[in-house]
């Protein structure tokens, strides 16, 4: 592995590498990924959003060989599409032609949660502060990604905005920081809160509405080898105008939420039951409603600093 990051390459060099047979290989947390795409908009987003990621040489081992390109055929001339490939095979139906970069990101997520059963993987954002990981399991539309974005600019380290990887041997959380995905109104909320944030292109009319990714903080990428122990399990929900409120949640019910948000719990059998039990053992568990992001961030900072809000148990 070289010590270079992608930012050492010009945008044209990134585009050229992505078009080449060897592709462009990057380290993303514990994984090495080779990307290929002839699409200029994908090259622009990769160059911008992966700027701080370690660049791998063509000789380095890679876990995934992924690509996004336009399928052949007449359709490319009147209604172009994009297709995701892993090892030359297309596991999904094509999407509209301007969704190349989101498709690449969704496909890379799928590679992790669908194939990497060395970890128990939750659909959850996860951030670290003072060595402890805040796990935010929630379905799409709950405000999880917005809260995650607010926290990572409010003193927390991003481990992942989508995938919580739990090591079955140590029981700790393995970081896999990547560009952070936001949808619809959340994009403007974060732009207003953090004007210096670097966004890629907005992509309209996806199945999730308007989608945009932003560049993860460089320190999160550099800290990708620093695991964290589970510290809190919090089920977030955005409710307009709602004051930020943490409500203690019974551990048994929090456990079931982790099961429901796990991608591969079934693969682990009894080991998965014991592993999630050990996570819940360590963590105070809460449900959380919020309507204003800055207030939510302040509340979590107090929680992490041991100043539990009234009525909540101390960590």
């Amino acid at each position, binding site marked *: 592995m070289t010590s270079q990051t992608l930012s050492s390459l010009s945008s044209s060099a990134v585009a050229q590498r992505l078009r080449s047979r060897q592709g462009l290989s990057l380290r993303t947390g514990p994984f090495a990924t080779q990307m290929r795409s002839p699409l200029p908009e994908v090259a622009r987003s990769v160059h911008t959003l992966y700027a701080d990621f370690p660049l791998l040489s063509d000789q380095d081992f890679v876990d995934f060989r992924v690509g996004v390109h336009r399928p052949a055929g007449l359709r490319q001339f009147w209604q172009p599409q994009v297709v995701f490939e892993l090892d030359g095979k297309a596991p999904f139906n094509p999407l509209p032609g301007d969704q190349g970069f989101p498709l690449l990101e969704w496909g890379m997520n799928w590679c992790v949660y669908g194939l990497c059963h060395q970890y128990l993987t939750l659909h959850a954002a996860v951030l670290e502060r003072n060595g402890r990981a805040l796990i935010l399991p929630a379905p799409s539309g709950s405000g999880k990604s917005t809260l995650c974005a607010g926290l990572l600019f409010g003193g927390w380290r991003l481990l992942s905005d989508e995938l919580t990887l739990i090591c079955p041997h140590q029981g700790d959380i393995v970081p896999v920081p990547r560009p952070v995905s936001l949808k619809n109104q959340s994009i403007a909320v974060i732009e207003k809160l953090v004007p210096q944030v670097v966004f890629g292109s907005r992509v309209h009319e996806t199945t999730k509405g308007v989608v945009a990714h932003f560049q993860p903080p460089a320190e999160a990428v550099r800290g990708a080898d620093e695991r964290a122990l589970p510290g809190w399990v919090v089920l977030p929900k955005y409710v307009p105008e709602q004051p930020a409120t943490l409500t203690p949640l019974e551990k048994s019910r929090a456990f079931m939420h982790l*099961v429901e948000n796990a991608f591969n719990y*079934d693969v682990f059998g009894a080991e998965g*039951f014991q592993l999630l*039990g050990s996570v*819940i053992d360590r963590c105070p568990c809460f449900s959380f409603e919020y309507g204003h992001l800055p207030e939510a961030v302040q509340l979590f900072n107090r929680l992490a600093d041991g100043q539990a809000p009234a009525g909540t148990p101390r960590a």
Partner: protein
Amino acid sequence: MAVRTAYQVSPGLLVHDWGDSAAVVFVAGMGTTHLIDGSVAAALAAWDDASPDDDEALDAALAPHIDALVQTGILQERPGR
């Protein structure tokens, strides 16, 4: 009695009980996980804690709870020790 957070009632039945109104149970034979009433978990823990000499009395106390788990489909059959 202190709450036992994790125990194995039988080779195929694992429990996490944090003393809440509910507990979670893993049925190895079916690979399924269920939320069960906390009182059932307490009965399972007492059964697991007991010496073999107490089996008869505890089995009798546990029987309705086990029957309820069987009837709701959480267990396919009564567990053995």
